[in-house]
């Protein structure tokens, strides 16, 4: 009775108005999706994955930052959209002198900042000086260490002038760069955002030369020289860039803008893609591959990605201080089975540390599967130590379903081949990093994505004393071969030396390469001019949107 009374109070007119409101609201909700409107607006909707920590190219450290900064800024050279080979950027041409130890870059006079100022050689010198400034604390400053005497200045041992760092503006449009030694991949290196220029008057206005966290990177302040300029930044929501009409090659830029969405959850990103909110996703959940292969066969892309997934041994603690145990652990792994049966995402087994084909280098596969030999090696170790079996081994990884899956699969393989008990320890990311850097582990997960397409980006990690090494492994022969590979001008000689490095890694087993990454992404068919590249770099000025052709 009471409920009847409650409803009795409603006037029919109120109900009618309510219905009309709902109808209007629902009508308003059913608007066209981003992907549908994008064809008219020429706006690319881009799944960014994560919110970048910085938009300052000298402080940025992430893939997300690269994806935005490569739209906003342009370095001396740019990248070919398919091969990533250097093509003219701000420099319209360059000369290689002294067998590659010196470069003369001739800057175009029509390269402008978004406020109309010309981009000059002085801007580049100022930018290099800034990132190397020891007071700035730039994490990627070491990317500029190939510049002559840059390290002296960066380490605070000498001033810029005293060190005579190898970057000099001959005039407004000529930049001379002198290197410590010839570097065959130097031009590719210039496409890393740490080499990008910044607009000096803007930084001076915000006193940002040696200070981080000033507001110069916010919309309205950021002055760019790339194909796009920053128009909006709502943290954790959207970063919008619009076409920079002052860009020297603006006529080639076909997109009117890009919207970057920092959607961290892969499931949310996939839903966004399926609803037409995004043109492309940053990644795809491994658990969804089978479904997406079936539903979106032409939109799911498996693209090679320059990265190696591996485990580190701690050579400072038993039993991995013994080569036979490390070797046995490596030989017991069936990497092909790992990628085929466990990962199933198009990854390839890592029988070398450097992904084959990196910069044209194809190392000889050495990390093979031989469980019988693995057993013999372990038995030899156990009998020498008077043990019946190995004590349980701790395997540490940062909390993630994917890492857990790999760890469990390896646990199975080691248990089957060697009868070893593995204890899996998952840790929250920061705890994991702290634990590994203190060397408090036996066996730990790791991964490495190359910064440039050259074997050096992988092999330098294992140099004695290198911060990334963390295994306790040192080898003078390795350091020597790496140095020769770094500095030689002959490709043949470089590859020979890098092969020596690979051989030494496979002889001493400080690491356990497992598989090479692939980049899994959903991409809408209307996105054109997008090519798979090893670094997942996609120069935006070549990208455009075009309606799907009828079958």
């Amino acid at each position, binding site marked *: 009775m009471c409920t009847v009374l409650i409803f009795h109070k409603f006037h029919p007119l109120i109900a009618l108005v309510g219905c009309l409101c709902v109808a209007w609201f629902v009508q308003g909700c059913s608007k066209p999706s981003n992907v549908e409107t994008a064809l008219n607006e020429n706006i690319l909707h881009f799944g960014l994955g994560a919110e970048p920590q910085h938009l300052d190219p000298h402080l940025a450290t992430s893939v997300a930052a690269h994806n935005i900064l490569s739209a906003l800024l342009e370095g001396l050279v740019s990248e070919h959209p398919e091969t990533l080979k250097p093509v003219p950027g701000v420099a319209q041409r360059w000369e290689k002198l002294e067998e590659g130890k010196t470069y003369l870059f001739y800057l175009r006079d029509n390269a402008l900042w978004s406020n109309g100022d010309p981009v000059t050689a002085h801007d580049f010198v100022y930018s290099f000086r800034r990132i190397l400034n020891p007071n700035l604390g730039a994490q990627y400053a070491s990317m500029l260490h190939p510049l002559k005497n840059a390290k002296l200045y960066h380490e605070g041992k000498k001033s810029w002038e005293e060190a005579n760092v190898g970057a000099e503006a001959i005039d407004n449009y000529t930049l001379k760069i002198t290197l410590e030694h010839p570097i065959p991949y130097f031009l590719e290196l210039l496409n890393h955002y740490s080499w990008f220029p910044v607009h000096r008057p803007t930084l001076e206005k915000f006193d940002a030369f040696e200070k981080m966290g000033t507001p110069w990177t916010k919309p309205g302040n950021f002055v760019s020289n790339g194909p796009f300029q920053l128009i909006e930044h709502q*943290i954790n929501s959207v970063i919008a860039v619009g076409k920079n009409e002052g860009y020297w090659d603006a006529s080639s830029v076909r997109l009117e803008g890009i919207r970057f969405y920092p959607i961290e959850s892969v499931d949310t990103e996939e839903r*966004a893609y399926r609803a037409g909110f995004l043109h492309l996703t940053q990644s795809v959940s491994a658990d969804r591959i089978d479904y997406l292969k079936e539903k979106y066969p032409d939109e799911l892309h498996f693209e090679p990605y320059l990265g190696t997934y591996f485990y580190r041994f701690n050579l400072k603690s038993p039993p991995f201080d013994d080569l036979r145990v490390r070797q046995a652990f490596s030989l017991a792994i069936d990497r092909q089975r790992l990628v085929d049966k466990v990962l199933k995402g198009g990854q390839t087994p890592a029988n070398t540390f450097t992904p084959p084909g990196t910069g044209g280098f194809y190392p000889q596969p050495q990390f093979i599967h031989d469980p019988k030999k693995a057993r013999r090696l372990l038995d030899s170790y156990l009998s020498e130590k008077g043990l019946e079996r190995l004590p349980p081994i701790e395997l540490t990884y940062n909390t993630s379903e994917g890492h857990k899956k790999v760890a469990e699969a390896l646990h199975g393989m080691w248990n089957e081949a060697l009868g070893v008990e593995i204890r899996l320890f998952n840790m929250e990311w920061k705890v994991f990093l702290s634990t590994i850097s203190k060397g408090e582990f036996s066996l730990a997960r790791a991964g490495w994505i190359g910064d440039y397409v050259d074997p050096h980006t992988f092999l330098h990690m294992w140099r004695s004393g290198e911060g990334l090494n963390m295994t306790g492994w040192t080898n003078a022969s390795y350091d020597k071969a790496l140095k020769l590979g770094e500095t030689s001008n002959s490709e043949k000689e470089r590859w020979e030396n890098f092969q020596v490095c690979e051989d030494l890694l496979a002889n001493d087993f400080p690491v356990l390469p497992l598989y090479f990454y692939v980049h899994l992404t959903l991409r809408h068919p209307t996105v054109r001019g997008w090519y798979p590249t090893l670094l997942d770099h996609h120069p935006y000025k070549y990208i455009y949107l075009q309606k799907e052709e009828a079958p």
Partner: protein
Amino acid sequence: MKKFVFSRVLQAVPTLWVIATLTFFMTRYAPGGPFDTEKAIPQEIKVKLESHFGLDRPLFDQYLLYLKNLLRGDLGPSFKYPGWEVSELIATAFPVSLTLGVLSLSIALLIGIPAGIIAALRKNTWLDYLPMSLSMAGICLPTFVLGPLLIYIFSTQLGLFPPLGWYGPADWVLPSFTLGLFYAAYVARLTRAGMLETLQQDYVRTARAKGANPWQVVTRHALRGGLLPVVTYLGPAFAGLISGSFIIESIFFIPGLGKFFVTAAFNRDYTMVLGTVLFYAALIILLNLLVDLLQAWLDPKARQAQ
């Protein structure tokens, strides 16, 4: 009443100080630091970064400096996003969480209270079993299941609402319902329990005996007392709702406060952790005070106690 409010505000000061102190030292003693990255940072760079954020000073000095800045309302810059002040990030994200929280709470109350009243009035009939079973399902069904389910039905299949984002009123519907339905379930059960107890009271029986119609009995006499458990629950629930929900924000890609709350801890973003914890604590204190005042208005016994 003024004295009561004044004393509660005074009590809030030491409470916030204790929370700030505990949070400050707990975050500092947690393993890992804000500058730990997979790519090892050279020691000299780490020193510069620590100096920039004042982490090179003795811990107690940092604590005193933090309290001093806090008194001036300065929460400091975020460690994770150094270009942004913590207060700026909270000010950006809070209106989003507040909107979502208010909408969700409205849905929770609009659904939960009538369902609870009907269930209490029609005890042990299908009008009791149905809403109570649904509410039990609502409590058991986590938001990370309900959210994608609502997206699948109302966005993917029917195309009525956007699946994610926070750009206009249409985007508010699905997240508000996902969060609101979860709370509606609790509200319904609490309302039913409160109403059942109140309906047994002598004053309700008297009202009935005097011939008041059932509508008047419920709205004028029983509802006030029946809603007391709901009001008690609403304070912390509303603080939780408006300080953001990490799961809902993650599912629907909403730039609210919940994400900062959770990721700040993972990132060891010390200033952000302190900022969000203090903000949440202040909200809880404020809303508990409002609840006490509301209870006093609803319940004469509570008014006398105060």
